[in-house]
């Protein structure tokens, strides 16, 4: 029995800042002091507060160490683990109050969260099946197989109101019901772990932090629809997730929780991994299944829907990772419990990946219906450097921008669509006054142009033409007519594309046109970029009456575009400098360097 548990985050974020080295060093230091049998070092999944990584939490005290360095480890071992003196200096400072130390759960980042899908992330060791079982793991599968009929399982899912967390929000119970209704000699259960939205990483965190929950939920789905085989389609660029999934599958086999005659009920279910090469379109369900079959990942028209003809032309149900992560809890705690959270049409919680101009970058899980303001200002800790909120982008390349006027809208599937965005997988990128909305639209469109598979014309050529127009606007060659033309093209692409990729690709353009038309007009009519982002419309100017003539800007300029003039402002001792706009490459180095704010964007 260990007296102390040290949890070190082994999610991708913390791993990239060397958390695994920290865990190694910990074990080394503990062994050197003969503490290895008293103190347990556990590598867990993501804690969510990625901005503060690498993260280390010591129980039973619950001390939350943030931004830990390898050099800090000896001190933590010597002081805290040996002598019981918490190293306050290294704690997450929000948990430190004068004399006492606050629980992590009472910090503003965690207090408003409600963790269902992420409940085991940062708590259990994802590579130990016993840890998962200790936290009620596989109990839902046991209950389903021994106490519930297939119909009861599907009815529970319908009653819970769970909707697909991958973005479109289709009711999960209905999906299962359709697949269950089709008779076939073989059916399949698939898991969409091809998380592709720029800025979204909740599926990765579930796979890395709690892989067994996905396996358990897939087996439950298998029982409900009558399938004996499952595939997890995960992108190869998530190596930690792939590794932990494989370990989890092997362990579940060893315990007989996958395989034949599970719990002695005669139910057989097995899961295999399929690695995706990282094409965005493979997150679309028909393309995903085509890719599993070993063919080129391209979508096909629906109907027939996967519930009728899916993988290998057999009835298939396909759900997203986060959707699965909710299911065992729904079975154990009941549909009513789940339906008690959220809004009328969107039940439960949703995980958001907070990114962009926000203090607490990371993963947050909140009940549906939480306002954007709560997420951004409270949990997210607001915007750095006292800048003003301009918009939040949800849903990645399929979603749109939500302006400040809609900060108080309760977030759920339907409200987001009503204000021109969508839930998507839950990426939430915060933008401040320094972001140009035309540039943002262009960024996402560049992504979809790259990722369009090319099978259908509206998407392949339409998005390309749209990008060309945006290019013209950001370089000062746009016209007002172009804005109308763009809108028309957007609606055409939406209406005529084959799959979800094309049908949603114009959303970033449409939503910015809707809420930030003035910025488009500034680009087109005044040839100005109000946020100072679009380089072709930008000019750096030195205010000669403010310039002290220190010459720092000239030293920093990489192209020698700044020279001294013969003008000395009244009250100044040295002559002012000026920028040759012909030579200037608009890198902004002088702007950053000037201590007197004498340089402005014109």
């Amino acid at each position, binding site marked *: *029995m*260990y*007296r*102390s*548990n040290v*949890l070190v985050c082994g999610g991708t974020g913390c791993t990239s800042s060397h958390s695994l080295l920290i865990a190694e060093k910990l074990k080394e230091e503990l062994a050197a002091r003969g503490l290895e049998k*008293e103190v*347990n070092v*556990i590598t867990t999944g993501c804690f969510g507060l990625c901005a503060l990584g690498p993260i280390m939490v010591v*129980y*039973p*005290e*619950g001390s939350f160490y943030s931004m830990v360095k390898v050099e800090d480890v000896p001190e933590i071992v010597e002081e805290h683990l*040996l*002598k*019981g*003196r918490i190293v306050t200096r290294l704690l997450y400072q929000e948990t430190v109050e004068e004399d006492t130390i606050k*629980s*992590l*759960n009472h910090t503003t980042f965690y207090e408003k969260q409600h963790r269902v899908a992420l409940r085991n992330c940062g*708590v*259990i060791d994802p590579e130990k099946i*016993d*840890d998962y*079982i*200790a*936290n*009620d793991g*596989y*109990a839902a599968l*046991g209950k389903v197989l*021994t106490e519930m009929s297939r119909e009861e399982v599907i009815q529970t899912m319908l009653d819970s109101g769970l909707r697909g967390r991958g973005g479109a929000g289709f009711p999960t119970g209905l999906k299962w019901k359709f697949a269950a209704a089709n008779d076939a000699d073989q059916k399949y259960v698939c898991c969409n772990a091809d998380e592709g939205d720029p800025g979204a990483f909740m599926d990765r965190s579930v796979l890395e932090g709690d892989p067994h929950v996905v396996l358990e939920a897939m087996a439950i789905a298998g029982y409900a629809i009558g399938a004996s085989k499952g595939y997890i389609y995960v992108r190869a660029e998530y190596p930690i997730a792939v590794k932990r999934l494989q370990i989890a599958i092997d362990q579940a086999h060893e*315990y*007989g*929780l996958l395989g034949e*005659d*599970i*719990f*002695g009920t005669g139910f057989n279910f097995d899961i295999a991994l399929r690695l995706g090469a990282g094409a965005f379109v493979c997150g679309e369900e028909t393309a995903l299944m085509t890719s599993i079959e070993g063919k080129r990942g391209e979508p096909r028209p629906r109907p027939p829907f996967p519930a009728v003809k899916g993988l290998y032309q057999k009835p298939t149900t396909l759900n997203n990772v986060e959707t699965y992560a909710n299911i065992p809890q729904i079975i154990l705690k009941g549909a009513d419990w789940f339906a008690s959270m959220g809004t009328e049409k969107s039940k439960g919680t949703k995980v958001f990946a907070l990114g962009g101009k926000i203090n607490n970058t990371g993963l947050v899980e909140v009940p549906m219906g939480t306002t954007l303001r709560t997420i951004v200002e409270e949990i997210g800790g607001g915007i750095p450097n006292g800048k003003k909120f301009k918009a939040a982008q949800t849903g990645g390349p399929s979603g749109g921008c939500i302006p400040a006027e809609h900060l108080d809208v309760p977030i759920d599937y339907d409200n987001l669509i009503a204000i021109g965005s969508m839930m998507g997988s839950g990426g939430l990128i915060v933008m401040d006054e320094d972001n140009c909305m035309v540039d943002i639209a262009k960024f996402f469109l560049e992504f979809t142009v790259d990722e369009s598979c090319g099978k259908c014309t509206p998407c392949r050529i339409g998005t390309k033409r749209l990008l060309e127009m945006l290019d013209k606007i950001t370089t000062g060659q746009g016209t007002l007519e172009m804005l109308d033309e763009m809108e028309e093209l957007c609606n055409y692409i939406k209406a005529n594309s084959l799959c979800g990729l094309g049908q949603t690709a114009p959303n970033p353009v449409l939503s910015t046109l809707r809420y930030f038309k003035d910025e488009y007009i500034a680009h087109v009519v005044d040839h100005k970029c109000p946020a100072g982002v679009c380089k072709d419309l930008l000019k750096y100017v030195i205010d000669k009456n403010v310039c002290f003539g220190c010459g720092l800007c000239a030293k920093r300029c990489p192209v020698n575009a700044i020279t001294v003039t013969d003008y000395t402002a009244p009250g100044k001792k040295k002559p002012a400098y000026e920028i040759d706009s012909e030579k200037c490459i608009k890198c902004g180095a002088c702007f950053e360097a000037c201590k007197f704010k004498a340089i402005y964007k014109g």
Partner: protein
Amino acid sequence: MKSLAELQAIRDRAKAQLDLRKENPNAARVLVGMATCGIAAGARPVLNAFTEEIAKRSLTDSVTVTQTGCIGICQYEPVVEIEIPGQEKVTYVKVAPEMVPRIVNDHIVHHNVVTEYTIGALK
């Protein structure tokens, strides 16, 4: 896995260790002084004895065993403080591992303070 009972057995075995990783504000707390003075006087075996005893009696979800620094009565180390919610804090002194099962049984489980081990008895 052939039965729910098998799953339950694994769960019971693994749960005690997992309970240590959760915050439980209502739990009784056993604080063992582990500063230099405490360690020198033999606080580590005492701390481990508490951990083992609590696990053995399946009390991990209602009792946390934690270390603390020096409370300033170094001559009486190893010092152990027990805080049960709603009751006064009790300080045991010169605690040895052999005394631990009785403290757990009498005080933590049955709420009878083992008076002869407390700081009051010594003075």
